[in-house]
Structures are given as C-alpha cells and as structure tokens.
C-alpha cells in the first residue's frame, strides 16, 4: 500500500481576517450613520410640522385644559396684560377660533413663552426689565405670533417624532454611550427649526406692533435691553446651542424688515400705567428711549421682591423708587 502523506503546509493570512484598516471601517460607518440620522431628523421634522399644523385649534385647547390648573390665577397684572394683548389682536386680527389667554407668573425669571391652546405666560422678571410699554407689547406680539403660526403645536409634534426616531436608532446600536452621543447629534439639528420659528414670530410680531402703535421702536428697545441683560450676566450661550437666536441677529432682522415695509422706527413711547408700576416697584419709569437701568438704579430681574408680593387688593406696598 502506498503511504499516504500527512503534512501541514502553512496557510496564508488574511482569508478569515479582513485587511481594511479598522479606523477606515469605523469612519465609513459613522459617516453613513450621521447621514441617515440627519436625513431622518429633517424628514421627520418636516412631516410632523405639516401634520401638526392641521390639528384644529380646539384640540390644542382641550390638550391645554389638562394643565390649566398649573397656570396662575388671574390678577390685576394679568388683566392688564390681557388688555394689551386684546388691543394687539384687535389691530391685527387672529384667525377665527383662535383665542389668546395671557397669564402672569410672579417669578424673577426674565422670560415669556407661548404654549398650546393659545396660552401665553409672562414672568415678572421680564416685565420689570422692560423700559416701556412698547417693548412689552413687542414681547406679547411675538408670543401671539407664535400662536398665530401654530408653533407650539408643530414644535411639540416635531419633538415627539424626532424623539421616537432617535430612540429606535439608539435601541438598535445597543450601546448606551453611543446612543447618547447620537441623541445629542439629533438634538442639534432639531434646534435649528426653532431658530427659524423665532425669526418668523419676530416678523409677524412686528406686523402686529406697527398695526397697534404705527411704529416699531418698541421692538428695537426690547432687543437692545435683552442684549444688555445677557451681557450683564456675563453668560453668553453660543447661538447654535440655544433655541433663541442671538439678539444682534434679531435687531438687524427687525431693522431690515422695518425698512422693507417702511414702518417708522421712531415714535411716541408709552410708559406703563401707574397702577401697574405701583404693583411692580422694580419696573422702570418708562419715559423716553432710555435703555439704562431702572430709575432706582438697581439691577432688574434679580432683586428679591417677595415682600412686595402681589395681592389682589394691594394697598400701598413699599415704594422703592
């Protein structure tokens, strides 16, 4: 019997192992994934916005009714604000069925927002920071414009859709940290829509403002004031990461818009009514185009004015002017 040869010739490398460099492999995967995430976020956001804008206002209102017990009770100040809002909507009417309800929140935050169902909330801190009624009217007009353009509904719809999409992708990767990194990427692209919405609301708000007063100086005053406050705090968030565009950008946008529409940028500024100034002693006196700090020389919005608490029947609170 012929002997059978037994041997082990050496085997070549690289058959069971790939030769591509792992970093190249990784880079390709990441690029593909980022591309898909960005596209998915953009598409989902567009779809959600279109759909949400179709939701009737009554549905929004019934949704809002669920958290209406968290909103503050009406008082003198909120009635004054409502009156101002009503004057704005009288000058520049809303679509039928849309109603604005203004609330006043007694906290030092310098902010105002619009939410579902036409509810607008204004904080005491913001009111105290306003130089005159025109600036306050611009704030209200801006928030009313958000409601008019259905921004609360679309932004909520967009947020839900994007969150859903990202959680599907994150569940797929099966790795916590990677999932969180993906989540941040999605959030960054999602925020740019809000910036657009803010600029749109500025435009529509200007239209209302000029319809009421005949000029738009209040808007200019508002944004210069906000810029001042930001600088005073020493805290400047890079524009990309914040949902509101930087104030200089908005000032230029407003001046540009005013020029294009030929709205006067100078005009009579209305001071705040005496009754309101009594209730909010930290407010400015409101005369002139002065953007400086309030008459009593103190920093706005940061003071603790709890002892000057708002009561329905306020009787001669401590006047610190």
């Amino acid at each position, binding site marked *: 019997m012929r*002997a*059978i040869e*037994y*041997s*082990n010739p*050496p085997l070549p490398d690289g058959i*069971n*192992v*790939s030769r*591509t460099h*792992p*970093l190249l*492999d*990784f880079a390709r*995967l*990441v690029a*593909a*994934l980022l591309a898909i995430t960005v596209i998915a976020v953009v598409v989902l956001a567009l779809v959600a916005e279109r759909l949400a804008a179709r939701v009737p206002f009554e549905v929004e209102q019934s949704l809002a009714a669920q958290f209406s017990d968290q909103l503050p009770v009406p008082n003198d100040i909120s009635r004054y604000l409502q009156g101002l809002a009503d004057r704005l909507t009288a000058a520049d009417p809303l679509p039928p069925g849309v109603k604005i309800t203004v609330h006043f929140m007694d906290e030092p935050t310098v902010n105002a927002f619009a939410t579902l169902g036409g509810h607008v909330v204004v904080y005491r801190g913001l009111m105290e920071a306003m130089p005159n009624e025109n600036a306050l009217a611009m704030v209200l007009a801006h928030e009313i414009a958000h409601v008019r353009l259905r921004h609360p509904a679309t932004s909520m719809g967009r947020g839900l859709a994007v969150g859903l999409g990202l959680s599907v*992708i994150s569940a*797929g*990767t*099966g*790795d*916590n*940290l*990677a999932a*969180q*990194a993906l*989540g*941040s990427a999605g959030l960054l692209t999602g925020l740019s829509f809000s910036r657009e919405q803010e600029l749109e609301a500025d435009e529509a708000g200007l239209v209302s403002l000029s319809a009421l007063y005949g000029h738009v100086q209040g808007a200019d005053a508002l944004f210069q004031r906000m810029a001042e406050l930001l600088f005073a705090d020493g805290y400047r968030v890079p524009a990309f990461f914040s949902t509101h565009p930087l104030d200089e950008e908005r000032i230029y946008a407003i001046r540009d818009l005013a020029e294009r529409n030929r709205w006067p940028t100078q005009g009579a500024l209305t001071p705040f009514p005496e009754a309101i100034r009594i209730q909010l002693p930290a407010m400015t006196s409101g005369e002139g185009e002065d953007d400086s700090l309030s008459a009593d020389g103190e920093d706005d919005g940061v003071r603790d004015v709890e002892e000057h608490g708002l009561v329905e029947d306020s009787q001669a609170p401590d006047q610190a002017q």
Partner: protein
Amino acid sequence: MLDLLNIILFCCLATVGYVAGRFAEQRHYRFIRSRERELADVLVFASRFPVLPHADKQVLVAGSVVISEDYFKRMVSGLQSLFGGRLKSYESLVDRARREAVLRMKEEARAQGARMIFNVKFQTFSIPGKNRNSGGAVEVLAYGTGLVRPA
C-alpha cells in the same frame, strides 16, 4: 452638560480601546506566527480515520483561550448591527482565538509526545459582560486526539 461629559467619556474609552486593542492584537499575532512556525511539526487534521502503519497510543488533547473584546470593537459592532453585514472587527478576534487555541492544543500534544492530532473539533462560546456596557469575551476550545508513537 451631562451630554457633553458622556460624549467625552465615550470618545476616551473608544480611543483607549482602539489604541490598546490594536497594540495587543498586533503583538498577539506576532506571537502566534512565531509559535506556528515553531510548532509546525505537530500536524493537525480534521479526519477521523487515520491510516497509519503503527499502533499508536491515543491521547485527548485540547487547548482553549478566552479573549476579551475591547471598547472600540464593541462600539463598531454596535454601529454595524444597524446596517448588517460582515463584522470585520470581530473576525480578527475570533481568528486570533482559534489560532491560539490550536497552538495550545499542539503544545499539549507535543508535551505528551504526539506528533499528529486527528479529529480536531472546535467549540466557540461567547461570554457576555455583566451589563450592556461592560465587555464580553470569546472563548474557543480546540480538541482532538493525538497519536503518540510508542518508543
């Protein structure tokens, strides 16, 4: 802020995993190749019926190794599992483990005086990590029957 910290941590782990992992892998492969040259005279076959003129003593020999994945590999596999397809980062891991297991089996055979190993079989297990974030490992067992020529 928490998001930023998470991203930084993630990048650090991935970088460390990549650098250390690549280094360990290259070193291991060099080691494997040198030992393969050295143990080339111990022959391995998957056949079960050796036709040999001698009546040899039979010994069961086995070699096993557990190799852990690194963070970079795990991350790449997570990404790849979204798209499907070949998982190149793991192919080198199991290849290393298999070759190492065969080498250890050969070493045991040589220690027993066997020069041929027949009916070589493989078993691959995956040892999962404790939770989703901690690493897992791959174990490969190679076993066969070594034939020892009587003295």
